């Protein structure tokens, strides 16, 4: 059974700073996803990482995948207030079932 753990669960940072969210998973996962969720809203797909060494970037967010370490990271560069949200990673097993981590609640302070 796939287990997904994120850390930290809560992150408060200042605008302009950099930080990394970590996502560890327990067994082989076909793909690794990152989603963003604003309060009371749905999940917005950010990245899909397909293979070892995959790196994807969109604006101030960059995601990477190390399948040997069973680790994905979401790096935030020069944070801005608009990035405040909860970020989830999810691993996919056969059948396309997504197993989510607990989420990292990010607050970016001015």
């Amino acid at each position, binding site marked *: 059974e796939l287990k997904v753990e994120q850390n930290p669960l809560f992150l408060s940072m200042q605008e302009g700073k950099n930080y990394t969210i970590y996502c560890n998973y327990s067994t082989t996962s076909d*793909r690794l996803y990152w*989603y963003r969720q604003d309060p009371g809203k749905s999940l917005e797909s950010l990245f899909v990482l397909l293979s070892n060494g995959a790196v994807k970037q969109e604006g101030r967010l960059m995601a990477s995948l190390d399948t040997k370490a069973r680790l994905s990271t979401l790096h935030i560069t020069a944070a801005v207030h608009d990035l405040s949200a909860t970020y*989830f990673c999810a691993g996919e097993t056969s059948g*396309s079932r997504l197993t989510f981590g607990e989420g990292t609640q990010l607050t970016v302070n001015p």
Partner: protein
Amino acid sequence: EPEVTQTPSHQVTQMGQEVILRCVPISNHLYFYWYRQILGQKVEFLVSFYNNEISEKSEIFDDQFSVERPDGSNFTLKIRSTKLEDSAMYFCARGGDTHEQFFGPGTRLTVL
């Protein structure tokens, strides 16, 4: 533009009542999923549906739950006899050729 729409946006029901949550895809898709999120908690997989059949279900998806696609378009999740602990956001997601899953806006279910 949302990939799927869901109705209702909020459903309030009494314990023991049946509820039907609906998911309407914008265009033709074969893969559908239901997830739920209890307030403040992580998102949990319920069931996946491919080509009008259940392909996988979780331990949460017990006999109280059922899914169907009655008219070939709408995709429904039925809870036969709701319990207090069924209160959650229920998300429908659709999948595509790339297996990426796109989530609908969700239905908030409140069981009193």
